[in-house]
């Protein structure tokens, strides 16, 4: 469309600039990472010198490789989602469909706060509670995988709540009447009309959440991530995780080969997050 007014030209120029800035920033980062990290990507990076089969079947511990950190991160994602998804989605549905306006206001406020709560605060909370429990109740409880996963779940729940709620609430009002007019109960209307229609957006929120739980470092550095632990064999012990490894190595690599490992780890974390993202994206496509 031609002959736009000055406002239009300005708006589109502005938009183009912003898009350009962001794209080039991302490409710089990815390019830099790939340029430096790609050469370090090989089996040795993950398994070091341990035979692959031995490592995978936990016959031998891997040292100097990333396997422990990778498995630690995957375990974290899995566990935290296990806790966060049901609770988060249920709460989101409750807020948009069942809560009366007073309730909604109070809860909405709580979840706004919860969403903006810094992850380190959650981490500190988890840590302090663990210590408290350790001192007074469970001598055997230390900062560990389980604690980290619970804290991560706490961290991502508001994201899931929010996207579920927004997705449901932004459905046009007409759609809300149609189901009931045909005799749908609230639950039926939800299950057959509203949730399927909002599924895309809800899953969009879950993507963000998964990403967050995979990458968050602040929580885990207070609640159980350690420099060396090996492949996790219990949810009650310390563990290694990729983001922590990257943070740790970036601060104190001793030589180029260690730094290269950090680049490799950054790439792998990127691939895991990217892979999860693609997976969620694929589901999103299928649902529609």
């Amino acid at each position, binding site marked *: 469309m031609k002959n736009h007014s000055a406002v239009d030209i300005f708006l589109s120029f502005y938009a183009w600039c912003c898009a350009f800035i962001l794209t080039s920033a991302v490409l710089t980062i990815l390019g830099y990472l790939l340029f430096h990290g790609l050469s370090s990507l090989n089996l040795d990076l993950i398994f070091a010198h341990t035979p692959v089969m031995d490592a995978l079947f936990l016959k031998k511990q891997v040292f100097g490789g990333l396997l422990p950190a990778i498995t630690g991160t995957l375990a974290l994602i899995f566990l935290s989602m296990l806790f966060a998804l049901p609770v988060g989605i249920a709460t989101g549905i409750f807020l948009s469909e069942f809560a009366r306006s007073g309730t909604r206001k109070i809860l909405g406020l709580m979840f706004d706060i919860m969403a903006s709560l810094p992850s380190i605060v959650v981490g500190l909370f988890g840590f302090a509670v663990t210590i408290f429990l350790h001192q007074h109740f469970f001598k055997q409880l230390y900062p560990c995988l389980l604690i980290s996963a619970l804290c991560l779940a706490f961290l991502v729940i508001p994201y899931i709540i929010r996207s579920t709620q927004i997705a449901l609430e932004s459905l046009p009002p*007409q*759609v*809300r*009447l*149609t*189901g*009931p*007019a*045909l*005799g*749908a*109960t609230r639950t*039926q209307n939800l299950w*057959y*009309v509203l949730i*399927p*229609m909002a599924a895309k957006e809800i899953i969009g929120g879950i993507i963000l959440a998964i990403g967050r739980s995979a990458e968050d470092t602040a929580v885990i550095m207070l609640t159980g991530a350690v420099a060396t632990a090996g492949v996790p064999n219990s949810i009650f012990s310390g563990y290694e995780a990729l983001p922590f490894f990257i943070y740790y190595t970036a601060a104190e690599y001793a030589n180029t080969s260690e730094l290269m490992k950090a680049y490799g780890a950054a790439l792998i974390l990127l691939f895991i997050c990217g892979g999860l993202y693609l997976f969620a994206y694929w589901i999103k496509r299928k649902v529609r």
Partner: protein
Amino acid sequence: MKKTKIKVQDLNFFYGPHHILNKINLDIPAGTITAVSGPSGQGKSSLLTALNRLWENIDGARATGRIWIDFGKGLEEISKKEYNVHHLRQKVGMVFQMPNPLPMSILKNMQFPLKLAGISKNMVPEKIETALQQAHLWEEVKDRLSSDAQMLSGGQLQRLCIARSLVIQPEVLLLDEPTASLDPASVEKIEQLLLELKSRCTIVMVSHYMDQIRRIADRNLLLSNGNLSLVTTKEQ
């Protein structure tokens, strides 16, 4: 005189402070077509939402008074809170003034009420075809059942909504200007359909067209200034 199907007593209807319907009393005999006409904005659509309690889902709307419907077990007071509103709405079909397809395929739109009623899968395709044929839409959509319902034309949408309300064979049908955006040929088909349905269905429809009312309605009610008055009756 036929049996009473719907009985309305002292129905008042409000939107916030606005009093829309004023102490309406009404008896609708079973198996008849009752037409409601009247100037725009007087509460015809609101009246329909009182009959299936849909107003409960509309912000700011409020109805008082009592309504009974006879679903074979004598007149039951459906306006009581305890009365199961979902069963009610399954037995009282409604077609809105503005067609409201659900944002899914044509087929899914048709399956929807069946799913709600928990009707078993194997009967479904026939039921759907029958309903679409009744609404005179089958020919136009049979090849594109899986495409998005929102892409239909205005008139097609109106017929889709009629078909959707028929698919679970309601006992009462509330129609809000069901032929407003249809061409004369379609209008005739729909009128034919309504006459056929009379035998097993009590119909309340809003219509502005005197010709149409004369052709098919048994009784014509006029709504104006919140009051309902009987204008003409066919039967005796």
